[in-house]
């Protein structure tokens, strides 16, 4: 039964003080919801208000905030997404990341729109939430278990069937505060970016369990929502190739564009792409759908490998980024091995993007003699040696040995420690954000390279990817290698991705922003326009930018590493040089975003226009 007067919301936040082992419930204010909506927006508000400068990512005073949005659990197909925010270790600035599965819906059904963890437990605990009640329980028996083992163990202990609960947990990587540790749940969905799993590990929080329940919030216009929901589904089925081939369906397309990461960006030649893409996987391996909550796209699959040395292995169908990370980036040409490594990195609880940048860099170092077998503590890190990669992932997750420990802090820090020429081979954004698994020097990817270096959320906030410009009334740029068009486009596009990340939908199941907006209006009754959605996103970006300045952001770090911004030596993007006009691009972007073109700080009039006048003083 719905008790809260704002449709789409339960109206409660659960606050968990892990130090004091105290749990409290706070009411949500409608004005806050109208300003921040949910997901990344609501979390940004709490992060800004409660984490002052001087608090490091592993300080108990850091907050770990889990929030969902008004569409989660509303019946919009696949809408069970939730967001996790904290100050993250990779950047030591604001971090946010989203995941799907069931949690976003179940969190609401169990009584809450969000969770705020503060403090740190004296020993390992996990949280159970059901019917408006929450309890911290002893998790010491779960320490050392991977995330799949944790899910199995907790369901057994609680005596529940698979879909009665949603479970998200950290694996050994989070326990050992690997900087790119993830939070993983519902059999393979991942909160991937900026080490949210490490923050959870610093708090000695092993897992969170939310029970399914009946819908307990109102919907403003249920009949209108049904109509728009079905329109959204029809659009999603016919948009892109995800419905038919999964996200790996675009793998070869990226190769054609020079945008597949191959051997740490040392080349763009990878003729094996045809046997490594989504089309090959779905026509050669056995697949079984394992959809997210009420998802009719069902692009998530369990897969059984049918050829090669890993025949018989059962795992998750790799998303595109896992195919790229454990395929061409490490010089691997066996798709079954990609499935195996996908399962390995997910169960250990580590980000595949940063994991593959670190390991690809280490392989290049090994090839060039910077690392010997003694340095790698016995591992032969030759390109394509997937068993060595599997072993290394396990050592990194446990910070085992000097080498595992070195790589556990990410490739930026590892390469800086090693120094010499090897320092120039690492792929990262200087702010610490991990690029996603593409070669961002390729055609149509400059937008993403630029966004990765300038993001304030530590995930993508401005790039055109997955939402075609025409869907938000913007013209598609005509020259994907134009510094002017790329930086200008990113500024115009900024905001709409964050709207999505506030409302609780999955971008694959709900890829049309205007239809998502219509569903949002049907649920809430707020009658927002597309400009309102963009403004929400820009408000969040600016709030987090001010947060980041307070926490030490330096604009000279808004650039790629030498290798990340290098000129491709072969392939379709050969010779294209993004760094030629990098400084101009950044100034242009700052200016268009309403920031000082020299300092990058949001101008007072920008903050006022976005309803952030109260934080102008924080920039002085």
């Amino acid at each position, binding site marked *: 039964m719905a008790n809260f007067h704002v449709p789409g919301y339960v109206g409660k936040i659960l606050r968990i003080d892990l130090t004091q082992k105290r749990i409290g419930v706070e009411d949500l204010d409608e004005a806050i919801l109208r300003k921040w909506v949910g997901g990344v927006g609501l979390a940004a508000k709490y992060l800004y208000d409660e984490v002052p400068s001087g608090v490091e990512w592993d300080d108990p005073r850091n907050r770990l905030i889990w929030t969902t949005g008004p569409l989660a659990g509303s019946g919009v197909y696949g809408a069970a997404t939730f967001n996790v925010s904290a100050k993250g270790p990779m950047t030591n600035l604001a971090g946010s990341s989203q995941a799907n599965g069931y949690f976003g819906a179940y969190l609401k059904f169990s009584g809450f729109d969000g969770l705020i963890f503060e403090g740190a437990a004296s020993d390992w605990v996990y949280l159970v939430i059901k019917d408006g009640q929450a309890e911290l329980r002893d998790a010491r028996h779960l320490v050392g278990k991977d995330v799949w083992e944790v899910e199995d163990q907790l369901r057994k202990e609680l005596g529940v069937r698979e879909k009665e609960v949603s479970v998200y947990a950290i694996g050994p990587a989070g326990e050992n505060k690997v900087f790119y540790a993830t939070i993983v749940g519902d059999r393979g969905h991942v909160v991937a970016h900026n080490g949210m799993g490490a923050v959870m590990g610093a708090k000695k929080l092993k897992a969170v369990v939310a029970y399914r329940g009946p819908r307990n919030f109102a919907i403003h216009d249920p009949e209108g929502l049904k109509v728009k929901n079905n329109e959204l589904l029809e659009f999603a089925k*016919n*948009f*892109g*190739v*995800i419905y038919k*081939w*999964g*996200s790996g*369906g*675009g793998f*070869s*397309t*990226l190769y*054609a*564009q*020079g*945008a597949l990461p191959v051997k740490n960006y040392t080349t763009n030649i990878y003729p094996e792409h*045809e046997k490594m893409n989504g*089309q090959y996987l779905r026509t050669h391996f056995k697949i079984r759908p394992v959809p997210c909550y009420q998802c009719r796209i069902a692009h998530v699959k369990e897969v059984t490998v049918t050829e090669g040395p890993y025949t018989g292995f059962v795992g998750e169908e790799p*998303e*595109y*980024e896992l195919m790229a990370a454990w395929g061409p980036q490490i010089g691997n040409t066996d798709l079954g091995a990609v499935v195996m490594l996908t399962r390995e990195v997910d169960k250990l609880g580590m980000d595949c993007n940063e994991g593959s940048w670190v390991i690809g860099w280490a392989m290049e170092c090994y090839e060039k003699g910077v690392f010997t077998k003694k340095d790698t503590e016995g591992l032969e890190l030759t390109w394509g040696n997937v068993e060595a990669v599997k072993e290394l992932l396990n050592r990194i997750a446990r910070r085992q040995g000097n080498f595992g420990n070195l790589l556990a802090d990410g490739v930026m820090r590892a390469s800086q420690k090693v120094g010499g020429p090897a320092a120039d081979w690492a792929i990262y954004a200087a702010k610490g954000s991990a690029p996603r698994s593409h070669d961002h020097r390729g*055609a*149509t990817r400059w937008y993403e390279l630029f966004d990765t270096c300038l993001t304030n959320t530590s995930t993508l906030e401005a790039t055109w*990817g*997955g939402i075609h410009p025409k869907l938000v009334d913007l013209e598609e740029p*005509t*020259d*994907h*290698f*134009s510094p002017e068009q790329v930086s200008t486009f990113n500024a115009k596009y900024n905001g709409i991705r964050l709207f999505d990340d506030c409302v609780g939908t999955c971008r*694959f199941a709900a*890829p049309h922003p205007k239809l998502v907006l219509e569903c949002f209006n049907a649920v809430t009754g707020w009658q927002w326009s597309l400009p309102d959605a963009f403004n929400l996103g820009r408000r969040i970006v600016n709030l987090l930018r001010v947060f980041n300045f307070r926490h030490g952001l330096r604009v000279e770090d808004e650039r790629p590493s030498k290798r990340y911004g290098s000129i491709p030596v072969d*392939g*379709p*993007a*050969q*010779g294209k040089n993004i760094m030629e006009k990098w400084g101009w691009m950044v100034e242009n972007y700052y200016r268009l975003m309403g920031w000082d073109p020299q300092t990058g700080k949001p101008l007072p009039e920008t903050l006022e226009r976005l309803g952030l006048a109260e934080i102008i003083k924080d920039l002085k």
Partner: protein
Amino acid sequence: MRVQVELWLWLSDQLEPDFQKLSPMRSAKEVEVEEGVTALELFDRLAAKYPLLAEKLFDRNNKKFRPNLSAIVTKDDIVLSPFNLEKDPLPPGCKITVMPVYVGG
């Protein structure tokens, strides 16, 4: 002048022998065209000649590629950009590759 068309669309068996089968995914054809022809004009002609291409690749009524396809133009295997498929004349010796869109994940 001669230009190369490559289709990365798993139509190789169906398009033989007029298109050379490079692999199960890729098929190719060298085409003789006059100077000044655009990519969309070229594919309109191909779709007129090959009904399968009209069905799968090119909407002759609207004169554009079917949804969920993307095309790039390369010369000496390097992407030409900027390049407008509707307006820019194809340069001699170029290759037009048509493939599925990439959405991400």
